[in-house]
């Protein structure tokens, strides 16, 4: 440590500063993350004159160090002396905004946007705007892409001459030579439009939008779609038709499937932005085309939007539009050749029943559900089953039960355990909707069969499923149907099945209550304490610890304590460990 004359408090800071240039990345990273400590020790003056210049040139470092640095500098204003000196942070952030690694640049831009708010209007024009201009006219595309994200934060707070310059710079970047910069500009176009005066939106932004939407690179065109949605929200209804719609119509029919995919993906936002009239005249036919697109990715994206699109249709004509325009396309998608399309549709199609009402659901949708329930792809069937609640509200699930049951049984026995796991998770929901009688009759045996599945994850999920079923159907039901079967497994010759009994008791004791636990479960657990397999014995200890709080104190003292004490002297160290743990948790010592 520091000697008599040295300052003890300097030492840890000195280490931190030295580690800024340590060879080990992890140490440099640690040091950068404590940059505020260093700055605090140096004081605002030295931070501005020594630390920041050093950091400005440290752009050679690893990405993770630079990323941490970019993030730190975003909240460094106080450490350089407050808003008055905030512009001192610009040089290091400017150099970070030009590195080649996207995440670092994005973080630097984020920090720049943050500290731009701390600039006074004067400082903004004197320091911040020149930085934006420098970046915008930089030699390398990295600096120009970073500039795109900075226009919108300074525009509202500068004079009208500077505003004109900013608009000019943005225009230039929209027609940059490199597609990377045009992409960055296209992705910020909507954001920039939001801070512009309406007249400039019409005179400046619209031509840029039109140009980007017909860029030769489809990677640029597809980003223009999103900008179009934002721009549409800004314009009054009467301008939409002339200024935005021609371009959006063209995007929906673009030669590139990626652009059409983007339109499909943004369809609900688009629908909200353009309002009911244009939805009726333009979006409905466009949506039909997307549902019939030749590329499966586009159809899947559109299929995902079917419900939301229908929901947001103007109420007066909703039903007619769905019945005459949308439903025919949906019917075709049910037998699509691509399983992703079918499964996307299956995840939303049930939602249509609430919109269309009982009669239409029975007549038109029910046949589709039934076809999908028999689909060869398990994901399609699962998606239908997982959304049964929507239909239940409208027509009751019984209408479906004839087809539902075979579908469930087949999924329950699927060769892929993930599929089995997924259907187990829907069991409590199904049980609730189908009612206890139907459940006992058809599904109970399935739930019990899962308890002896050869995959642990399934047995575990089955245990948890039983608990949820008991929550739904009550303790009495449990005592009559489940508990005897569970306890019966305690005598199974397979120790894994015997352990399942213990796991079930862990899960069920709470929901079954004291009486059933003490009377029926506890004796079985205690009996199992003499099992030959150590794994079973230590699980008995864990089980007792778990169900202890449910039991009354006399049962604990008279029955549990002696067993645990015996297990505590077991020759297996794991059994001992868990027995002692249970004794101390249950305070039986």
């Amino acid at each position: 440590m520091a000697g008599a004359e040295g300052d003890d408090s300097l030492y840890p800071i000195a280490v931190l500063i030295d580690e800024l240039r340590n060879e080990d990345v992890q140490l440099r990273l640690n040091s950068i993350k404590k940059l505020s400590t260093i700055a605090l020790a140096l004081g605002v003056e030295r931070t501005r004159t020594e630390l920041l210049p050093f950091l400005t040139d440290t752009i050679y470092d690893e990405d993770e160090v630079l990323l941490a640095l970019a993030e730190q500098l975003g909240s460094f204003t106080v450490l350089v002396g407050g808003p008055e000196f905030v512009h001192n942070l610009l040089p290091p952030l400017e150099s970070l905004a030009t590195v080649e690694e996207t995440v670092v640049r994005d973080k630097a831009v984020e920090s720049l946007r943050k500290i731009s708010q701390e600039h006074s209007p004067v400082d903004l024009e004197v320091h911040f705007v020149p930085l934006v201009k420098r970046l915008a006219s930089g030699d390398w595309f990295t600096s120009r892409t970073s500039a795109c994200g900075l226009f919108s934060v300074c525009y509202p707070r500068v004079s009208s001459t500077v505003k004109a310059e900013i608009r000019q710079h943005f225009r230039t970047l929209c027609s940059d030579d490199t597609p990377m910069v045009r992409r960055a500009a296209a992705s910020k176009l909507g954001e920039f439009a939001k801070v512009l005066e309406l007249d400039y939106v019409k005179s400046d932004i619209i031509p840029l939008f039109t140009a980007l939407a017909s860029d030769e690179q489809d990677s640029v065109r597809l980003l223009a779609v999103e900008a179009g949605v934002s721009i549409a929200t800004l314009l009054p209804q009467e301008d939409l038709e002339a200024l935005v719609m021609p371009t959006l119509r063209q995007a929906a029919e673009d030669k590139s499937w990626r652009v059409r995919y983007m339109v499909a993906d943004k369809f609900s936002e688009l629908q909200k932005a353009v309002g009911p009239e244009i939805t009726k005249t333009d979006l409905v036919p466009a949506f039909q085309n997307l549902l019939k697109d030749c590329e499966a990715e586009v159809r899947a994206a559109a299929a995902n939007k079917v419900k939301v699109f229908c929901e947001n249709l103007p109420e007066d004509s909703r039903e007619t539009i769905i019945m005459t325009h949308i439903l025919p396309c949906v019917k075709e998608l049910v037998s699509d050749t691509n399983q992703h399309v079918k499964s996307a549709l299956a995840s939303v199609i049930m939602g249509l029943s609430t919109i269309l009402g009982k009669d239409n659901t029975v007549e038109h949708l029910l046949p589709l559900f039934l076809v999908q329930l028999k689909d060869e792809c398990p994901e399609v069937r699962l998606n239908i089953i997982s959304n049964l609640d929507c239909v239940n509200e409208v027509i009751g699930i019984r209408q479906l039960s004839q087809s539902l049951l075979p579908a469930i049984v087949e999924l329950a026995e699927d060769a892929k355990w993930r599929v089995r796991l997924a259907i187990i998770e829907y069991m409590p929901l199904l049980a609730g909707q189908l009612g206890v009688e139907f459940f006992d009759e058809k599904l109970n045996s399935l739930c019990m069969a899962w308890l002896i599945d050869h995959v642990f994850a399934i047995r575990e999920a089955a245990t948890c499923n039983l608990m949820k079923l008991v929550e739904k159907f009550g303790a009495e039901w449990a005592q009559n149907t489940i508990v005897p079967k569970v306890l019966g497994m305690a005598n199974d010759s397979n120790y894994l099945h015997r352990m399942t009994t213990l796991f079930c008791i862990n899960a069920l004791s709470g929901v079954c209550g004291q009486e059933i636990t003490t009377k029926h479960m506890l004796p079985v657990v205690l009996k199992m304490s003499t099992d030959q397999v150590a794994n079973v014995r230590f699980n008995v200890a864990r089980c007792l610890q778990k169900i202890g709080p449910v039991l009354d104190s006399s049962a604990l003292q008279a029955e549990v304590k002696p067993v645990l004490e015996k297990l505590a002297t077991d020759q297996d160290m794991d059994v001992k460990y868990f027995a002692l743990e249970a004794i101390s948790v249950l305070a039986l010592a």
Partner: protein
Amino acid sequence: MLSPVLCSDLAALEPEYTEADVISTVEFNQSGEFLATGDRGGRVVIFQREPQGEYNVYSTFQSHEPEFDYLKSLEIEEKINKIRWLPLHNPAHFLLATNDKTIKLWKVSERDKRAEGYNLRDEEGRLKDLSTVTTLQVPVLRPMDLLVEASPRRVFANGHAYHINSISVNSDCETYLSADDLRINLWHLNITDRSFNIVDLKPENMEDLSEVITVAEFHPHHCHLLAFSSSTGTTRLCDMRARALCDQHAKLFEEAVDPSRRSFFSEIVSSVSDVKFSHSGRYLLTRDYLTVKVWDLNMENKPVETYQVHDYLRTKLCSLYESDCIFDKFECAWNGTDSVIMTGAYNNYFRMFDRASLRDVTLEASREVCKRRAVLQPRRVCVGKKRKETDVSVDSLDFRKKILHTAWHPKENIIAIAASNNLYIFQDRLTPNGHHNTPEIQSAPPKWQTQPNPPTY
């Protein structure tokens, strides 16, 4: 047409070389200021053009190491199959290098400053007497000698079940493709953990396999177009706009073979070993065993131009098959203005074809003939009797000396030729501004002149 002059001869001094030193790929960057080579030993060497025009070593690094795939019990060679430069981003240079399985993105950057000043140690690293540390010192950056560093930025692994034969960067500058024998994958340059399969030729049953992908390349300007060629002699053009999966091609370039000329070797020699889009994007250049062909993208049924590279081998196919030479994969290249085509041949010969004048020339890249500032003399291979003293008989060609990898500077008449472990860089006798810079007068073109450099590696 051209006057070749050797401007750099970058090779091992000793005539003895190991297998690892054999150059396996050569590629200029977009400006032509840099040239990268990869070798069988997994090394990448980058050359920078000096103001005087010579190329000198700028950076050397080990890109790939030999590996072993324990799951499949397969050795993975470190040999660099392809190198592709990324368009310039910032002062650093980026390139993709691939071996059979793994693609790596490398950054080559310069550093000319280093930090000085520790609090607790002196510059030699000795701990200071702590009692002297009374104030905090922030390190300062001081100029130092230029240091070129190569650092691996990303590793794109596990995308291919078969051997990668090509990589190509898209004009959108954010994606690239990689092709193996049966599949083409599309990657995002920033994402290493997934790629999209866009072409899959793998049949359900591998016994039905009838063709393999030999090369794939993106169009230079249209980000949605890619071409790939196969072992059956076809080249397909795919439009990525039409479908996410490009198994169905937009165009198929194939020349009908005269049934009467069919032989056992027909399919083998028609296998396309290289495909290059012209700089204009209008034409495709394909190389098969005996010819180079220029295809107009607008005409699928036959090439617009066909050039014989070494037609005299047509009668030797049997022995070439026995020596496996018939499977050699020769590359081809366009010059900057798409007016001249270059490709390699045997006996350290390489060929150039002037598309306008239809003149062609055979030149030799070897240590014996490439002298400083000497102009390369054309060679002639004769089938029958020698007509001139300098003629070479077909039977005396050395088939072990082959020029597979060639590259042409994107703007100027500078070419790079890899002949086993040697790299020759020739430049046109004309300087870029059009003045002759060598006094000697040559009767007829082509004249390529040599200008050796201190050997490196």
